[in-house]
């Protein structure tokens, strides 16, 4: 839905210069499907198909969407686990989208990833302290052993864990504690951007708030730290983020501030997503109007022509299947990709 090759799409009008830490333009990530003996490419899964946004230093940017919309792929392309098929990713002034693996070293210390699953994201045979310290050893951040130990202890305290637990193994911790270890590991090299990929959705309700608050506190403490907060739960994303991008089938359909997104959603998908989230209040729910979408998210292998949302859109027009919408600024800082706007 974002315009192909139109670089200004989705960027905010007022962000220029060096306050922008990450500038993603027209990012595409395709996964080839290989068949047969010669591994010929028969098709592409268009996981991310032209996504443009930027992140300011010290900002919490939310990326929300349902499974298969490509939000995780965006995060992993930015941290260069995946190589972008097209587009640029400018991080701290440098285009990292085409850097070869061997030149990614410095990037790896400035950007880190927090995972969804607190069980599979920690090596079960590594003690918690070693897990947290590994980034520092990898990037030779510390000179002496004592400095290393102090720093690991500091990180433990920062995320609310007792430093004395450093020699325990992951299975001895609860899910929430493991997620704290993951956060400590992500903080180890003083990164400027942390990509949080569904960091709380595997946790219990009462633990989720602890982790959200921890992430917010840490960001308040390190003013220059930015988060990209990827999640499927719009309520959580809205709670933590300053600005939010809503993704659907590889495209960003709407980007604006959290407040504006809730008060004044424009794209039909955003509206449907908002209305699908039940509010924990029976009195409100009693009278609340809801738009229930029909059908399911199509496969990114065969995305619908025109607007990818048109088959489920409650406000579909005949043109929607013909024209791919470009992103337009409907009000300052509020971009929507829908041809009806």
């Amino acid at each position, binding site marked *: 839905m974002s315009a192909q090759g139109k670089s200004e799409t989705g960027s905010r009008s007022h962000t220029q210069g060096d306050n922008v830490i990450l500038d993603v333009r027209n990012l595409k990530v395709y996964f080839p499907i290989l068949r047969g003996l010669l591994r010929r490419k028969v098709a592409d899964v268009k996981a991310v198909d032209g996504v443009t946004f930027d992140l300011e230093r010290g900002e919490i940017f939310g990326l929300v969407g349902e499974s298969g919309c490509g939000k995780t792929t965006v995060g992993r392309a930015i941290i260069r*686990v995946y190589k972008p098929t097209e587009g640029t990713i400018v991080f701290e002034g440098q285009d990292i989208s085409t850097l070869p693996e061997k030149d990614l070293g410095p990037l790896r210390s400035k950007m880190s990833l927090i995972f969804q699953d607190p069980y599979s994201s*920690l*090596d079960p045979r590594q003690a918690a302290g070693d897990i947290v310290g590994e980034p520092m050893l*990898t*990037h030779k951040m510390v000179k002496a052993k004592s400095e290393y130990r102090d720093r690991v202890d500091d990180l433990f305290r920062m995320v609310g864990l007792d430093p004395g637990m450093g020699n325990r193994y992951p299975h*001895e911790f609860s*899910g929430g*504690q493991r997620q704290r270890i993951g956060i400590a*590991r992500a903080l180890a090299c003083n990164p400027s951007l942390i990509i949080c990929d569904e960091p709380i959705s595997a946790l219990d309700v009462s633990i989720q708030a602890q982790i959200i608050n921890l992430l917010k506190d840490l960001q308040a403490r390190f003013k220059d730290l930015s988060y990209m907060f990827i999640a499927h739960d719009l309520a959580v994303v809205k709670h933590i983020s300053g600005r939010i991008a809503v993704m659907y089938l590889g495209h960003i359909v709407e980007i604006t501030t959290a407040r504006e997104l809730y008060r004044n959603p424009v794209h039909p998908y955003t509206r449907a997503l908002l209305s699908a989230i039940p509010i924990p209040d029976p009195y409100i729910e009693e009278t609340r109007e809801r738009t229930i979408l029909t059908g399911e998210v199509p496969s990114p292998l065969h995305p619908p022509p025109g607007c990818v949302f048109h088959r489920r859109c409650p406000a579909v027009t005949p043109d929607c299947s013909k024209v791919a919408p470009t992103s337009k600024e409907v009000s300052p800082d509020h971009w929507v990709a829908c041809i009806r706007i």
Partner: protein
Amino acid sequence: MAIQPEGMATFQESRRQYSEWRRIAQVYLRRKVSVLGLVIIVGLIVTAIFAPLLAPYDPTVTDVVNKLQQPSSAHWFGTDQVGRDVLSRVIYGARTSLLIALGAMGLAAVIGQTLGLIAGYFGGWRFHIIMRIMDALMAIPRIVLAIMVSAVLGGGVRNLILALGIAMVAGQARMMCGQVLTVKQNDYILAGRTIGVNHLRMMLRHIYPNAFQPLLVMVTVGLGMTIMSEAALSFLGLGISAQTAAWGSMISDGQNYLFSNPVLSIAPGVAIGLVVFGFNMAGDGLRDALDPRLRGVV
């Protein structure tokens, strides 16, 4: 219908105050036959190490006058066709068997697991080249492969280790590769990548320790099988020189006297059977004890 209530694993794992190895030991020790297997293995090791103390005679000294004696209080298992004490030869045979089994298995494990680790970790062309070669090796029956190798290299303990070792490389590589592919799915491997951990550390520190447990079972059972193969090769005369006490060649030598002096063949035969049984049972016990599905349930 076996339903695991959600959350069971969560609170058990979080509260586990005991170590994983202790749990494994407890599950293992619960099965009597596995304990018996362990006892046999320990017995074999002790026998092998203390052979000179345990054996009543020198196993290589011939005494043609007293050849082919029936079991007696002087020679419990009698003497063979050149008058060597059979009991002493069985005891020293444990040494040969264990040495060859450990050597061959060790060789196979080092080469096979390294190849499997590389193939599984890097994938791509490395995977295809290594695994196709392993497939080709797998296509030849192990014993035939061992015979081919020892026919080329000749006899002797060292060459026997080589022959049997090479024959087992493919199995180790395949198993390792499969394990690595599973372990690689975990997020901590991705985490290591985003941190910038180099390939060597990734393989040795993160992948190998999480992949080796099932191979432990395979190695244990493999040790028993190696002893069997070694005996088979020795029996066929492709093994070790007649001087060295080896169970396989003892059976082979004894078969001419099967009716007059059956002990000559039976004694080493029983030794082989017992040891192979021991390794198999130990392997079974280990397999159960390491089974992740049993974690927390028992």
